[in-house]
């Protein structure tokens, strides 16, 4: 597609030994990164075999007896399977698809703010929730949404409505609460990548467009959005991989007996079955299903994206 950078071509022509010698400080700096990935990402992948084994405390992962696809069969034939998949997919769709455009919209809006000071203040305010722990956020939500004396119910009551709704105990409000909370927590942080991409757009394009009579909306539509198309594509592909993983902490903390029918997802199930009941093999098999589905989704999204927009991860 694009011409190869001549200096890269020159470097790649040289033998590895010479390159190592010439750029050794850079390679040394790469060592911790490689060690990190080997130790914490690749070696633990070996634990996947647990999905096919009856885990024994004494024999360990590799010494335990094989049980084939027993756990997968148990899961797919269990009563929980349909409900868990449905709940997980719904949460995944909310987080990966529904929430996806909001960070882009925020980045576009921030980009249009003229006052540098106001822009920075707005950015800081929107980033802040990202640094709060889910426990704090959910405790705040519990207080805001509490029946009778919660802020929301008091507002409803002041407007003449019924201020006794226990939002967190009603399954029908669960997704709305999750969506609102997740947006508030992550929108600022997620917009950073888009702001960085916008900053990389050649300013002369805007100047030329302005001379040609484009208003701000048109400049956004014809310069900014196409300019960050690559970033949007990449982040979308990576986000799609998480479709079958709802995230643990938020869901776990938001769960109540009242909303359990929709708040029980694969992630919470894995913890409940794996850690609380000690069924490590069963929990691993469900984790593996999530991983494989995630991989398939990423590869598929990458292909589709490449075909439609020429943007792809590889």
């Amino acid at each position, binding site marked *: 597609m694009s011409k190869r950078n001549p200096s890269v071509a020159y470097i790649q022509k040289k033998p590895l030994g010479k390159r190592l010698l010439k750029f050794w*400080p*850079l390679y*040394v*700096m790469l*060592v*911790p990164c490689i*060690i*990190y990935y080997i*130790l914490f990402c690749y070696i633990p992948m070996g634990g996947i075999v647990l999905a096919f084994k009856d*885990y*024994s*405390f*004494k*024999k*360990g992962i590799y010494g335990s007896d094989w049980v084939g696809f027993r756990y997968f069969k*148990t899961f797919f034939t*269990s*009563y*929980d399977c349909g409900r868990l998949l449905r709940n997980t997919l719904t949460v995944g769709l909310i987080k990966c698809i529904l929430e996806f455009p909001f960070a882009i919209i925020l980045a576009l809006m921030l980009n249009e703010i003229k006052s540098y000071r106001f822009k920075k203040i707005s950015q800081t305010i929107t980033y802040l929730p990202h640094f709060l722990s889910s426990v704090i956020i959910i*405790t705040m939500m*519990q207080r805001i949404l*509490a*029946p*009778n004396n919660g802020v929301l119910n008091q507002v409803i009551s002041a407007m003449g409505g019924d201020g*006794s709704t*226990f939002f*967190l*105990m*009603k399954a*029908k409000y669960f997704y709305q609460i999750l969506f609102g909370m997740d947006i508030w927590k992550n929108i600022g942080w997620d917009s950073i990548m888009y702001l960085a991409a916008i900053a990389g757009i050649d300013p002369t394009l805007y100047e030329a467009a302005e001379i040609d009579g484009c208003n701000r909306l048109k400049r956004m539509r014809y310069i900014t959005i196409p300019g960050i198309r690559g970033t949007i594509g990449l982040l979308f592909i990576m986000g799609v991989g998480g479709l079958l993983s709802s995230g643990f902490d938020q869901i776990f903390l938001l769960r*109540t*007996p*009242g909303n*359990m*029918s929709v708040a029980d997802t694969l992630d919470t*199930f894995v*913890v*409940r*079955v794996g*850690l*609380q*009941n*000690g*069924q*490590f093999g*069963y929990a691993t098999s469900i984790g593996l299903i999530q991983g494989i589905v995630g991989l398939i989704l990423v590869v598929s999204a990458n292909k589709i994206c490449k075909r439609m927009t020429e943007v792809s991860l590889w």
Partner: protein
Amino acid sequence: MKSTVFKKAIALVAAMTLTMGALAGCGRGGSSGSSASTPASNATSQGGSAQTSTDGKPDTWIADRKVTIQAYVDDIGYALPEDTANNPVFQEIKKRTGIELEILYTPSDSDSKTLAAQLAAGTIPDMIVCYLNNSVRKEFPILYKAAKEGMFADVSEFMKNSKVYKKYMEPGYLPDDTYKNIVFREDFDGVYLMHLSIDAQDHSTEFDPNKDYVGGLMIQKKIADALGVDVKKVRTLDDFYNLLVAIKNGGFTDDNGNPVYPLGPKYWGGSVDTIDNICRPIDWGVSDGYNLDENGKVKHEIETEYAWKKVEFMRKLLAEGLMNPEFFTMDSTRSEEVSRNHNSAIMADCHNYVDLVYETNDWVPLGILNNIAGQQSKVTNGKSGYGCWAISAEAKNPEEIFKLFDYLASEEGQLLCEYGVEGLSYNMVDGKPVLTPEVQQHLDASDHEWLINNIGAGFGGAGCVFFDFMMTDVDPEVRFGESRPGSGTATVYENAVKLAKEYPVTYVLVKGLKASAFLNATEMADVKAQMSTLNYKETLVQATYADSEKEARKILDSFKKQLESAGLAQLEEYVQKVYDADHDAVQFYK
């Protein structure tokens, strides 16, 4: 040039630091604990047999070594001395037995999860200790798996020569569940799990106001007096409902002037467990959800109309504003707050040894409501246990560890563990221990930190909980003349005892295990795996908060199907067989 060399040097140093940092995190966490105990163990074996090592040492001497214990008990973890090396009780144990104790605790949101994770990772030290009321508790499957797979040392031979733990082998000493399902399981090839807190004598059907707790539903005394209610006569579901309605209509307010909720959450935080207290007259599934139907067949409550009756009752309380909407979900901090500021006219659960009750005299027990059999008595199934310990199969000289805990469970050991060191924290008067005025004063002031750090004894749970938790063959009144250290002379619990005397509890003995205990049978493994993810009480709450009756019934039907799919029929058949063979084997009554 100079700057390039400098940059390279900086890069190299940074890279090396990061690399070393990454590698440093890869060591085995447990290694330091093991290495710490190894030299001590070697020293013991080098010292030779007990005969040669006891020269100039007390008769209670066991070995010069260190024993590291991992506790999966939050009460223990949050009540450990800051400096065990200079703590009087720890020092005295070292002096008497030669053993230095190190107690570890890993804080987490769930001790049972930590137990599972550490057993799976194989990172347990010499010994573990955890909660275990009975074989139905969530920790048991994990302990069972670990014991079956040889993670723990077999202590059966040590028991035979022990002073206290040999009593476990005597017929009738242990509760049935402890004997059959925990300690002497038929499918174990040895003894691996030691159940703790076993009473020396069975006092389970006797009520002793000096030590027994009076708990359950508690009502504000001033509200009960204002309404002229005899709290002992509130026995049926109608009595209870009428009382709640009377409270609501009474216009009572809390300390902030807001109207009270007739029924509030339990003092320690909202919980689905409180269904048992408020729905006791219609609690058909007395055996952990199971009971016998009119034809004598084992059934789960979900298969009867009682499931709906409970939901219907709780929905009525919610709809009429008789129950705090956050009854089941309120966190512990807020729950304590609404109890302390008298926002709840009735607390769903509390007891007379909570300072809110014994310090204020504002609360009295309500009911208790009748059970399904129409009895106001509490049901007991005899003696029971509370905790469990096991020695790691990897521990050096497990017999020494066993001997230590056998000694601590002896009368002399219990005196040290519960009262501390003679002359420092207590003196013997007429053969019984009496706390020193200073210790008594700190105990009365609930100054737990002082008791833990300056004495280190258990003080019946008010001090270093570990030593209280590790007791077994318990009979404090016979041995020490009082139910817990200082209770004979303490003024602080006077009101708690007074309340217990005014509102005594009667007990009825129903022998046998709860039906769900039979999920531990080998042939029930698959059923147990499926059923372990289902929660009946949560389903009842879910149905209680459903938007309509139709939806609530749908939730119950769905749970019934889940239970059937998990193997309900198999479990019922198994339990029926056991019950038919021996009616005392399963805890059924109605």
